[in-house]
């Protein structure tokens, strides 16, 4: 069965404040969707709510992955069902090496007794690290501790490559990356494109989309998707900014949940 990820009327709050005001989106295997929009419009909240971050409360709507109810699942179950979120600010965890972490994540997907062999794991990890031009010593460093912004992002992509998810959400993966790193990360994503996998790329710069060609582009404002289109929409946003969208829709303040 082809992958199908469905978001229907999703509303979410943080500390009682409603940030997502009804998101509708369908992502099929093979498709790349980009969500663009200025800061403070709810883009990252969407990513966190889909993954199940404990600070966000979903108040309405449905999310399904291949027909399974995602919102009923705990965070780890969502991940094992095939959801992957490359985070904007990944946690640093002292004392846990990157490789121990990655191996635990891979083994969490396997039955007890059929864990990945150490040699096979190392071969896989080293292969993927090479693709991402990561220094092999990062395998033995503590998870994200002391990593630069760009190193953290590469490490997120490394996890994506190793965990083989069905739906990949990239939350501002391009922030803090120089152009070379951006190309490497984009290349990592492009090698993962397949009919079985869908992508949701969240960004407020168009430049990432020069390297990862989206099939659909959505603009988010005030906690809703206010405009959708093809790749040409991203180009127009790059050239003309967001003001024309606001004008067209009669939006004065595009943000959501901000203190007055």
């Amino acid at each position, binding site marked *: 069965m082809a992958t199908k990820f469905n978001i229907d009327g999703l509303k979410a709050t943080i500390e009682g404040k409603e940030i997502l005001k009804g998101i509708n989106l369908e992502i099929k295997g093979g498709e790349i969707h980009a969500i663009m929009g200025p800061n403070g419009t709810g883009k990252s909240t969407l990513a966190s709510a889909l993954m199940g971050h404990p600070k966000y409360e979903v108040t309405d709507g449905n999310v399904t992955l291949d027909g399974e109810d995602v919102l009923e699942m705990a965070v780890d179950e969502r991940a094992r069902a095939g959801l992957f979120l490359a985070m904007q600010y990944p946690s640093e965890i002292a004392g*846990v090496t990157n490789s121990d972490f990655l191996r635990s994540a891979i083994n969490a997907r396997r039955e007890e007794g059929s864990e990945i062999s150490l040699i096979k794991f190392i071969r896989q990890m080293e292969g993927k690290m090479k693709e991402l031009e990561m220094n092999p010593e990062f395998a033995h460093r503590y998870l994200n501790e002391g990593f630069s912004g760009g190193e953290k992002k590469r490490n997120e992509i490394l996890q994506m490559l190793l965990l083989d998810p069905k739906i990949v959400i990239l939350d501002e993966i391009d922030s803090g990356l120089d152009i070379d790193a951006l190309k490497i990360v984009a290349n990592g994503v492009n090698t993962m494109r397949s009919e079985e996998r869908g992508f949701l790329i969240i960004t407020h710069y168009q430049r990432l989309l020069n390297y990862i060609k989206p099939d659909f582009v959505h603009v988010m404002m005030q906690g809703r998707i206010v405009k959708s289109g093809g790749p040409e929409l991203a180009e127009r946003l790059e050239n003309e900014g967001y003001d024309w969208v606001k004008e067209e829709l009669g939006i004065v303040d595009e943000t959501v949940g901000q203190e007055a």
Partner: protein
Amino acid sequence: MTTQTILPIDRETLAALSQSNNEPAWLSTLRLEALELAGQLELPVVEKQKISRWNLDAYGSYKSSPAIQSLSELPESLQSLVNLEESSNILVQRNSSAVFQKLSAELAAKGVIFTDLNTAIQQHGELVQKYLFTAVKKDENRLAALHAALWNGGVFVYVPKNVDVELPLQAIMLSDDATATFAPHVLIIAESNSRLTYVDNYLSTDGVGLDQAVHNGVVEVFVKPGANVRFASVQHLNATNVTYRRAVVENDGRIEWIIGEMHNGNAVSETMSVLQGNGSSSDMKVICAGTNEQKLSITTKAVHFGKSSDSQMFTRAVMRDAASAIINGITKIEKGSTKANGEQTEKVLMLSPKARGDANPILLIDEDDVTAGHAASVGQVNPEQVYYLMSRGIPKSVAERLIIHGFLAPVISEIPLENVQEQLRSLMERKLGQ
């Protein structure tokens, strides 16, 4: 009104015991003086733990255990701790006396001494007498005095000048009889420019009444100019525990402490470096884990006298159930100790709402030309970290375990022997596993 202190042994019995063990007069005198002091001195002041309510009297009586011929006669629980093939330097104490010891011929030929303290007193009496109870003194408090009166078995290490002991010296201290006094005294002397690593394990079985027993131990380490001593200890006892560890470090000497306090009983421990010499340095890494109703008082302390002396302290505690820990880090820099540097970090991780932890960094500085720093934190497992790990498919229980392991890993990975590291990991697993 004076309160009557009831002593665990009377004068006559102690004198007779010393005599029957063939101890020299100076030692008998020392024991009897200490016993008298124990009757007069107060308990040590332990912040925020009422140790006067702890069971601190059940010392039992001296019981020597029969010697064993080979390590394979050790109880099974200890077998995994020793590498039967390679352990060329090992000593085992069971209850009140040593039962096995082995030192490689090569080290013996270099003048290295590694034996139980009773034997050392018979064979190297003058050497022992010169150092014994000079770092931890018998008149410091009632518990130190009781140890001086009752100590048994123990370890004596002597490394001559310029000798480098490459392989770790290993000692195993087993308490499996609640009626036997268990009070090992470890005395280590590293002569100028020598180097050694010492690792010990304190274990008890689940035998009857061992949770009612008392372990009262003292460690004294003398680091001579330019010498380097790594001291690692993993303790896992059911008894109530009292341990004083102290190193006196001379010019350019270095002491490294790696301590795992993984007891099941209440514990007071103080690990201290006296940085006597210029350029001397101390590095302390301590972890402890508390469960059930356990009460722990864990102190690290560095006292700087020498110029350009350096001390580092790193303590990590994990508390679950209704356990409580008081973690003290004390950096004391004396006047004249110019260019000294002292850094300390204490962190407590609490796994349940009833667990308690206090981290108290204390800097006492009497010299202007120094640098010092401290950091302390007490908290719960960070939910953001749990979320991050879970978002990769790792179940919550595994995620929490990874984080707890990670919290303690910087100390565990420093343990010099692989199998002792492994043991500490599995102890942690057993104590902290859900």
